[in-house]
């Protein structure tokens, strides 16, 4: 199945990918080519901000895959995102080398501060980029595999599953807050200097990260579209709609669920890994249950089981969050709370659902 074939029946996807290419090409060139005085110039701040939104969009895509198509409401996807982020953060921590405050060539500053003398075993290997990149995918993936295997095999479903995924991310948050864990405790990992030898502050690096994120998002979208159009994807949807029936037909329901769950966790980890170099910090706050819940609402706002809806929702909600917290910080939680209520009550299919409903009425 070629890409053109894949997108033939996906009008929304075509619009999204076109826009993504435009954004991925134009914004960096506006940033690099135009002088800073020009009104069309895009500042490095804006570029990084939009890059951050694109990471969130990738994360939302992952959630839409399990929730929209698989019917598994995971309230712990923030954990996979944060784990991917930590893996990338650990690599960049090692890249600092002896340029830290304490100038220790081997140990990151916080370990020197804790009087540790050698690197914990789980930090070994993170000085190599390929290893870190592998871990970005492998760590969230294997956690999702173990957790999902246990949960799906014993047929924990629905709300129960949501609550234990929430407990999972909560437990990880508590664990990462501990200094003894060796992940920087409360402060997390920060003060990164460069990635692959390029300074994180340089314009070129920022543009490179931005384009990489856009590219990853585009590829992830196509991959997700491929997955949901494949036979596997259709079985997953069948499981969502009638789990027992699918099982009676003869499918091993738990394996399908596990597959989609692990794939989604890997995507979330990738999003985290792209996120950390752009914002420059990763701390245990990313594990907080509130974060995981928030990203569910992105998907709900955009529209479930559409993929591009999730992207739309992530960008819209985060843009309004940026605007609100800047001008009326008090109002943001009111707005977010109202969004949760109103969307579930009046927009069960999200904004995309609203759009297609309009189109249906006109036709």
């Amino acid at each position: 199945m070629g890409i053109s074939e894949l997108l033939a029946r996906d009008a929304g996807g075509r619009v999204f990918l076109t826009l993504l290419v435009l954004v991925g090409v134009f914004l960096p060139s506006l940033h690099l080519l135009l002088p800073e005085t020009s009104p069309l110039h895009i500042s490095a701040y804006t570029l990084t901000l939009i890059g951050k939104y694109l990471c969130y969009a990738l994360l939302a895509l992952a959630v839409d895959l399990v929730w929209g198509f698989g019917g598994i409401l995971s309230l712990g996807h923030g954990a996979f995102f944060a784990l991917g982020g930590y893996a990338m953060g650990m690599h960049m921590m090692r890249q600092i080398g002896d340029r830290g405050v304490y100038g220790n060539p081997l140990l990151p500053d916080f370990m020197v501060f804790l009087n540790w003398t050698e690197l914990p075993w789980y930090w070994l290997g993170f000085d190599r980029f390929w290893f870190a990149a592998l871990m970005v995918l492998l760590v969230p993936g294997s956690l999702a595999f173990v957790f999902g295997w246990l949960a799906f095999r014993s047929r924990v479903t629905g709300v129960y599953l949501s609550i234990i995924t929430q407990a999972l991310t909560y437990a990880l948050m508590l664990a990462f807050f501990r200094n003894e864990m060796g992940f920087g405790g409360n402060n997390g990992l920060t003060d990164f200097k460069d990635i692959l030898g390029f300074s994180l502050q340089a314009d070129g690096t920022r543009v490179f990260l931005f384009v990489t994120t856009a590219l990853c998002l585009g590829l992830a979208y196509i991959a997700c579209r491929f997955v949901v159009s494949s036979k596997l994807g259709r079985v997953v949807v069948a499981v969502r709609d009638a789990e027992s029936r699918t099982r009676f037909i003869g499918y091993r329901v738990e394996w399908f669920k596990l597959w989609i769950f692990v794939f989604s966790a890997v995507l979330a980890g990738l999003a985290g890994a792209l996120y950390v170099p752009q914002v420059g910090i990763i701390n245990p706050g990313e594990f907080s249950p509130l974060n995981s819940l928030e990203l569910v609402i992105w998907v709900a706002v955009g529209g479930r089981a559409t993929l591009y809806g999730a992207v739309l929702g992530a960008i819209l909600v985060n843009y309004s969050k940026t605007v609100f917290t800047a001008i009326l910080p008090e109002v943001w939680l009111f707005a977010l709370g109202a969004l949760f209520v109103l969307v579930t009550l009046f927009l069960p299919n999200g904004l995309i659902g609203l759009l297609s409903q309009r189109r249906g009425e006109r036709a």
Partner: protein
Amino acid sequence: MASRVAASGHTMKSEPRIGTKEADILMYRMTFSRFPASVGGRCTSPPPRRRSWGLGIWIIIGCLLIPALVRAEPESTAFVNALSRLKDAPTADLPEAIERLATVDDPRVLAALNALLENRLYVVKASGRIVSGTTTGDGFDLTDLESGQSGGSAGRFDIKKIAINNTLRNAVKRLIARRELGAEDAGQRLQAVQALTEQADDESTSLLRARYPLEKDAAVRTAIGTALALADIGSADKATRLQAIRALEGNLDQQVRNKLAELVETREDGSFVEPDADVRNLAAAVNSNLELKLQLNHLAETLFFGLSLGAVLLLAAIGLAITFGVMGVINMAHGELMMLGAYTTYVVQLLMPEHLDWSLFVAIPAAFVLSGLVGIGIERGIIRFLYGRPLETLLATFGVSLFLQQVVRSIFSPLNRSVATPSWMSGSVEINGALSLTLNRFYIIVFGLLVFWALLAILKKTRLGLEVRAVAQNRSMAKAMGIRTDRVDAMTFGLGSGVAGVAGVALSQLTNVGPNLGQAYIVDSFMVVVFGGVGNLWGTLVGGMTLGVANKILEPFAGAVLAKILILIFIIVFIQKRPRGLFPQKGRAAEG
């Protein structure tokens, strides 16, 4: 507080000037002035004057004159005279003046000595009266010691402090204890005995020994016995020592434990601190018995802490057991309903600052009504449109929780609010030297069980409870039988929410009251309900208590955070094994 710090700083500064000299005087006085053991007796031998050239003469003259003078004086003037000597006395004579004051038989003496001990005895410069003062902002509130009434207020420069140093302070403590040893109230006597036990010198021992045969109160008698046995361990006679150790058998008092541990200690070179082998062996035997007893007590304490944590979890989860367990509604705003209850306590206390002791009794029904009404509002406004769509309910109620948090933040500020603890809830009950139970935790356990029992009664005995159970088992059948399911839904949800509010009142006594109070408990309370088994109140009780005790047992080994993580992981694994909790519902209800 600031003034207290400043005051002690002042005393310390003055210490080098007079300290050692005063200590000498005190030693001297302790040795030579033998007061009769009948403390508080009005006739005492005179305090000898310290003059290098005529000590003996002064003692003789004093013996002759002062008893007569003291006798001649009426009580009230004796006190006033003794008190005024404090201000006239040069620093070196202060110990004597204080001792003199302590021997006057007058109830006001205690107030004066306590004021002296706490560094708040002052001389008003203008009138020369001696008063006790407490700092208020920039000045002092004075209390006249003679009349016991308010003496107005004064600025910092109108009064002069009567300062004492640490040596003298110990002496004052001893004097107070000696007075108190003959007090009417057994509690006061007990305190005096404890103070004297801490002093542990010849004089206090002889005071206690004299008191022992006279003492009627059992608790005070035991305390004196312990103190005497402790003193006897230090005696020269071996038989006395062995007997004293035997007398301490099974005594869990901290001082006893320290003393026995001292007896069996070894030095760095391996030799024993205690030279006598018999004494050492006996002490070791008594000590090992004590160890066992201590461990049992420690276990009891852990159990108590665990049960109180369990009671907190029970309170947090029990409302959820109604809304989630019985109705099947995921209410993520449950924690915020508890938070509303906690803030209700805060507001009630603001409204009735004069009656803090009673505030909780007003706050409990108020919180029940407020949270219940908010709950009914949530049910009617949002949840009823989402029945049968649990995941959407989860999201919508989560939105409500964010909303409520921000409401509280806007009204009360994001900072934590302090809620006062009523006096009857503070303090602790001492079971023995090694085990004391704090009262607030004890009341939480009682309260948790009471709420549980009340809910159980409502569900089993009232018409509402019957209807709730009917609707939970089979909605359409219940409807067919004429039950207004809409109303029952609203009432059930209101009941669960109201209980959450009541739990919030209890939590306000244990943790900080802030906008995030609810969030901290939401994951825990879901865990309890899921662990215990949905739709089963008894499961919630057992689940809450089990998790609480398990948490407290793990804490010493793993630390607080890791214990919590371990419990969470345990529950995650447990749900894999038994997806329907400890006590799953059976029969048709299980399929609902």
